[in-house]
């Protein structure tokens, strides 16, 4: 079995196992998993509107997954997507609400850039600490998620102008003006008034750009080289430190952009958060399932968007929709223990193609 089929088979088997585990749990508590999964897919893909919602959900997930993938390729764990996305969301939202009259053609690039800059700054901190002092980026990104979470609460409570907040509350802002929103008439009307917006297009552009960077540019090569062996890269004249920092900056910018897309496409305002943003952790799940490759991320984001959008439909059968999150976690678990799947695979092949093994045996 060659490497390519294996790369596709392992996540597929993990998905099947994840769904099976979900089915077993549903059966154990007296629910019918077939009806449950049927309603899940119907409410995610059954109408133009639900397809629009599913596609909308993909936008932020693709971007946070790309963020995780860039860091992973250079050998770093970016668990800070939640905080980076939050930084991108709140900063760009603050700008758009403070200057609501900027024309649309200027507004959208501006909020994208602002969100990416602040996200990038959140990625720069763990990057430079790791490169210069060797501080574990796993810990610093986790800590920064919470620092950003509490700081965003402080910002909306104490720094935001009173006139951009909703009346009688300091927990959410007013909605953004129509010329800042990522929603467009044609995309909404195409999908029966769903929240589908240009965020998905932005995400796909980012996906293509990253695919080109990974495969066709020096930076992509350097990232891969440092990820494989930082010492060897140094000997080859690549500055490992510079590459580490740069990748974390790019990762932060992508997650920040994810926050912008989430804010301007889906939420339309800023709401004070009590926990880390979901899109951060699910972005990690998407990247892991997609094997950190752009095309894999696209399909994985589609799957997780279907799960997320369709979950509420399971209540039709009285099934608590949280089961879908259990399935998601289970899929990632099976990806994590892919060792066991990989052990299973060649054996399965060995039975079918016994001649090949015989040859091997003769050689040995």
């Amino acid at each position, binding site marked *: 079995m060659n490497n390519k089929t294996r790369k596709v088979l392992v996540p597929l088997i993990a998905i099947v196992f994840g769904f099976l585990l979900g089915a077993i749990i549903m059966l154990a508590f007296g629910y019918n998993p077939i009806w449950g999964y049927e309603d899940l897919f119907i409410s995610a893909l059954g109408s133009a509107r639900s397809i629009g919602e599913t596609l909308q959900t993909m936008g932020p997930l693709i971007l946070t997954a790309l963020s995780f993938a860039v860091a992973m390729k250079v050998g770093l764990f970016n668990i800070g997507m939640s905080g980076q996305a939050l930084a991108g969301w709140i900063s760009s939202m603050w700008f758009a609400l403070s200057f609501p009259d900027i024309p649309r053609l200027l507004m959208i690039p501006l909020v994208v850039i602002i969100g990416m800059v602040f996200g990038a700054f959140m990625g720069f901190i763990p990057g430079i600490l790791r490169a210069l002092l060797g501080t574990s980026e*796993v*810990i*610093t990104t986790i800590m920064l998620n919470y620092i950003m979470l509490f700081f965003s609460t402080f910002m909306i409570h104490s720094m935001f102008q009173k006139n951009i907040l909703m009346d009688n509350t300091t927990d959410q802002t007013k909605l953004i003006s129509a010329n800042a929103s990522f929603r467009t008439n044609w995309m909404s009307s195409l999908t029966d008034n769903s929240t589908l917006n240009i965020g998905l297009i932005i995400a796909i552009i980012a996906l293509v750009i990253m695919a080109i960077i990974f495969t066709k540019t020096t930076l992509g090569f350097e990232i891969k080289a440092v990820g494989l062996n930082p010492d060897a890269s140094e000997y080859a004249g690549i500055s490992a430190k510079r590459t580490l920092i740069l990748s974390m900056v790019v990762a932060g910018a992508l997650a920040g952009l994810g926050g912008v897309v989430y804010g301007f496409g889906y939420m339309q305002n800023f709401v004070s958060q009590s926990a880390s943003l979901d899109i951060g952790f699910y972005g*990690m799940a998407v990247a892991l399932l997609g094997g950190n490759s752009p095309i894999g991320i696209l399909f994985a984001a589609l799957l997780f968007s279907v799960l997320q959008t369709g979950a509420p439909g399971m209540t039709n059968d009285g099934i608590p929709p949280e*089961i879908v999150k259990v399935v998601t*976690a289970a899929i*990632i*678990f099976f990806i*994590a223990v892919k060792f066991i799947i990989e052990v299973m695979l060649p054996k399965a092949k060995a039975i079918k193609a016994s001649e090949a093994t015989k040859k091997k045996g003769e050689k040995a």
Partner: protein
Amino acid sequence: MNVVNTLQIIVANMLIYSTPLIFTSIGGVFSERGGIVNVGLEGIMTIGAFSSVVFNLTTAGMFGSMTPWLSILFGALIGALFSSLHAVATVNLRADHIVSGTVLNLMAPALGVFLLQVFYQQGQININEQIGYWNVPLLSNIPVIGKIFFTQTSLPGFLAIVVAILAWYVLFKTRFGLRLRSVGENPQAADTLGINVYAYRWAGVLLSGVLGGVGGAIYAQAISGNFSVSTIAGQGFISLAAMIFGKWNPIGAMLSSLLFGLFTSLAVVGGQIPGIKEIPSSFLQMAPYVFTIIVLALFLGKAIAPKADGVNYIKSK
């Protein structure tokens, strides 16, 4: 408001909020000293809190005021069970420790809320039998000091301090502790000397499950008095921070937990105290995380975690 009363409130709250952190961070110490990175402490706490609340509700009629204590033990048991997922993935199946830990964090709240819906048809549930305040016998009669440190305080808090000392003894003064540390520092060498690396790593993770389960359960039984998806929201990560801040040492973890508990205490009760109430509570809540980054970056450098922490050990045939 008089000074003694104010200090009493701050100290008692510090101990109450530190208790779950002390247990959980010591759990983290055992896991990581054995070489298994455990970012899943948050998930373990969530499961501990959930199972203790279910146990409490089911048996409150039977056990009366003993219920919360038994619930905590039940939380420990389920915490251990849940952590075995992490153990089997990282020790036996060569999974990446960070990914596997994240799975625990994703799985726990989903499973908790799912089962809550199945059992009670609601997303949040309160318990009636809780752990209340406690006066330390004898010591609370000491003038001033007794009032500040030993009245209206937390019994689990004092138990946590005892457990920290015990954990330090186990880790640094017993054969089990020496072997656990050896598989975290150099599993190959330990294996050569006939130590069962896999068994000791399992033990470390299971201990983190037990203690993390206790931590989550205490949070539910003594602080929140309920379970919902937001009952455990970051305490597991603060415990992780406390473990690092305490340099992977049970006593250090306990002291950092107390410090972080003090920040939470000030954020909660500081509104009444001049000098503290001017600081926005967001900054007090942020402080543990900022301190951890600063300490990790400036004072500790890299050579501080157990050497083989996060490295899978694959036994050669």
